């Protein structure tokens, strides 16, 4: 009997031990493939910098797609990734906007929804403003400088930068381009900040690309330490500025031939003529962003009906570039998010034909700068298509990975995507991907982008960089 008790005890104990066993899974082995992520630098514009909600502030900087990529690279040999955060006490940087309330008004069965979005100006890093220092029609916001030599820098993203302002390109002999790229440090407060500048005084003449190649290839002490991997997402602003200006300024659109030449030159430099590895991305069709879809002629019309407490048909009129007069707005006209709705209906004189209610009469249509009409849309789409042809061929020429952001963003707009049970779309506020400026991503949108870059890197370099759980990043903060 004693023997029995012993063996039963043994059986019991081993069963109890077995029951503690959890299944193990080992389906993924991180690997850098044939890339080297020891020192990753990021080159680009506001998207790269982490600009969000209409400003550059620390939360956005820390959730930029580039910062998120760098976090994932850490398990495959990636080193530290220094972002130009604002100092404590100035963490709101340039300031940004937040959503305070959403008011739905319904009258006579017609509903109008208005989000109240207001600026945050506390804890700002802004120290001054310089109004149009060099006659380019650009005002410069000066912020507390960032000390690259003391803190280091891996994220070189500069909000607002275009490919054409990234470096002077002399072969085409365009004086304006050369000047604006040479003096870019004195024309863009975000770049001025990285250059350590305290005033837009005409002394900051290091072109952006030179700055990247210089600082990116050195460590903090100034000794040589070349970057081993780069991401470059430049070119969005070469089309975006034209579009957000309602197509009113054709010169805001970078010439496709110049874009082609300059993109080749930029990637040639960044890859050290095809030897350094990296990843680039195409330019999304600018009309895929909520900046152009949140406000429509129908929503304006409903807004007026509710405000005037009427069910009568309200026609909205927009300026037509081809006729030089007003015409009825259609659903094909893209009205920008920043259109000041308070203007609607105000009695003003526009086309020299007397006083008419703004936007509601053919003689006083919504101005060109607020509307991207179908002709202008075709212009910008054509330019973007041409840029993207360049980007794809240059990527393959210098052997870097490519994410086709254009086709991905088109899907996001058309059908949305579902990530771990969370639906994400290009809708304003509710879509979750875009921040309150309607152009730049939320942390959730940035995580989507980071994953797409990582997938491109993994497939091109045979790497296994782990992906992010997009669903765990926030969309728009709701009041």
């Amino acid at each position, binding site marked *: 009997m004693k023997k029995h008790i012993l063996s039963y005890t043994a059986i019991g104990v081993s*069963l109890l031990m*077995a*029951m503690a*066993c*959890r*299944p*193990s*899974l*080992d*389906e*993924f*082995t*991180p690997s850098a493939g044939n890339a080297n992520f020891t020192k990753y630098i990021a080159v680009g514009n506001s998207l790269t910098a982490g600009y969000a909600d209409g400003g550059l502030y620390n939360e956005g900087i820390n959730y930029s797609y580039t910062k998120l990529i760098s976090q994932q690279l850490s*398990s495959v040999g990636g080193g530290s990734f220094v972002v130009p955060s604002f100092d404590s006490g100035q963490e709101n940087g340039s300031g940004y906007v*937040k*959503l305070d*309330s*959403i008011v*739905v*008004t319904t009258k006579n069965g017609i509903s*109008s*929804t*208005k*989000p109240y979005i207001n600026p945050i100006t506390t804890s700002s890093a802004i120290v001054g403003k310089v109004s149009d220092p060099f006659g380019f029609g650009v005002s410069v916001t000066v912020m507390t400088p960032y000390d690259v030599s003391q803190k280091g820098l891996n994220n070189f993203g500069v909000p607002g930068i275009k490919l054409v302002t990234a470096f002077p390109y002399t072969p085409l002999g365009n004086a304006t381009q050369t000047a604006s790229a040479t003096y870019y440090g004195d024309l863009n407060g975000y770049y001025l900040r990285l250059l350590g500048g305290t005033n837009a005084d005409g002394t900051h003449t290091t072109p952006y690309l030179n700055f990247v190649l210089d600082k990116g290839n050195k460590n903090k002490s100034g000794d040589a330490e070349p970057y081993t991997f780069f991401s470059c997402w430049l070119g969005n602003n070469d089309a975006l500025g034209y579009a957000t200006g309602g197509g009113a300024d054709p010169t805001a659109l970078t010439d496709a031939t110049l874009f082609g030449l300059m993109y080749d030159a930029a990637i040639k430099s960044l890859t050290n003529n095809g030897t350094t590895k990296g990843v680039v991305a195409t330019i999304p069709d600018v009309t895929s962003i909520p900046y152009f879809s*949140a*406000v*429509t002629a*129908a*929503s304006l019309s*409903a807004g007026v009906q509710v*405000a005037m407490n009427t069910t009568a048909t309200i026609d909205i009129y927009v300026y037509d570039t081809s006729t030089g007069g007003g015409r009825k707005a259609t659903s094909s006209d893209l009205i920008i*998010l920043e259109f000041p*709705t308070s203007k609607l209906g105000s009695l003003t004189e526009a086309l020299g034909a007397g006083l008419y209610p703004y936007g509601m009469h053919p003689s006083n249509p919504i101005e060109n700068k607020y509307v991207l009409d179908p002709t202008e849309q075709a212009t910008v789409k054509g330019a973007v298509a041409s840029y993207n042809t360049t980007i794809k061929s240059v990527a393959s020429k210098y052997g870097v990975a490519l994410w086709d952001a254009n086709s991905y963003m088109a899907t996001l707009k058309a059908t*949305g*995507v*579902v*990530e*771990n*049970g*969370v*639906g*994400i*779309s290009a*809708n*304003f*506020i*509710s879509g*979750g991907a875009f921040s309150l400026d309607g152009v730049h991503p939320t942390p959730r949108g940035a995580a989507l982008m980071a994953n797409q870059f990582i997938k491109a890197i*993994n497939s091109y370099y045979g790497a*296994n960089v*782990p*992906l992010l*759980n997009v*669903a*765990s990043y*926030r*969309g728009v*903060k*709701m*009041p």
Partner: protein
Amino acid sequence: MKTKWTTGLLLALPFSVFSQGFQVNLQGQKQTAMGGAGSALTEDVSAVFYNPGAVARLKENGFMLGGNVTMAKVAFQESGNSTVYQNENKYPTPFNAYGVWGPKDARWKLGLGVYTPFGSTISWGSNWPGNNILTSMALSSIYIQPTLSYLLSEDISIGAGFVYNHASVDLQKDLPVINSDGTTPGHTRLKGTGYGMGYNLGVHFKLADDCNFGVSYRSAVKTKVKDGDMTFTNIPTSLASSFPTGTTFNSTLALPDVLAVGFSYDRNPKTTYVFDVNFVFWSTYKNLTFDYNQAVAGKLSSTSPQNYKDVVIFRAGVQHKYTEKFALRAGAFYGLSPVQDGYVAPTTPDANRLGLTAGIGYKVSSKIHIDASFMYQYVKPRTQKNLETGLSGTYASHIYIPGISISYKL
């Protein structure tokens, strides 16, 4: 007054997935210890469940009380990532109680069974990639089954039972909305009870002194959950109208019908072999729909395709009576998964599974018997991308189920 802003569109917001209820095959310790086979057995009063047709063949009246502890250890690894997530420890306790009575030497017997043939409990918490799909689920069903069995002849007996099912569901998940403080995600919970009805039929053949054959059929039980409560917490004020308080839901759980065919063979007076095949007709489970009493995120109902398929489970076991008082049992089963590719979800991390079982029986006296069993289930790792939620990864499970019962023979 300006902006087109679609309030409701947070795609896939309402509970889009839920269910299967694993089939719980733990209705008797003897059968459980023998791989779950037992349609042909006339060993004890759990025949009320395994084959109502065998009840009339039972030698004595009696009753029995049993229970198990289900310890499911589930691991999940998201595709493209190294992190492995483990479910939280939750130990549901399926139970059963049976009583059988009939006049001595009569051809009929009455039986009553209370048991839990479907149920599932899984908890993942909020710190895993599927937290917007499921954070926890508790699904249980209690069948109450009065039964009448009749001995047609020396060799053939039949039985039938009526089934009343009381079910409860409790599902929770996070919602992808964030307050202005930027820290607290929304959360929702569906909680309700329901009932359904069905029946059992069985026939038992004594083929020879040492050979028995049994067939039992347990009908599908459509269980309706009515006026369950759907609650929302941490919803930002501006979205309150999309996630209204006082929301109730109705839904139907399609618990499938099961056909069991079993055979037993007494090699000698001490050793018995049992074999069973179960056909589980899960294909009735096409969709899971929740109807709401008011619009939730702009919708009055949500439907989630499930598209289960019919499956077969093979079972075999052996019992050896060492002494008059002491018996050892062992067995195994292999079950195919009803969940098709593309539909594997956190609620149902299901795959083909192998079960190994063992148990002992001890007669304390001629009236009191104690049986204990232990089941181990190995659920094959399965890598899947869910078509509806996009959650992509590998699930693996180990399930340990000890159990014990006590029987009293009148």
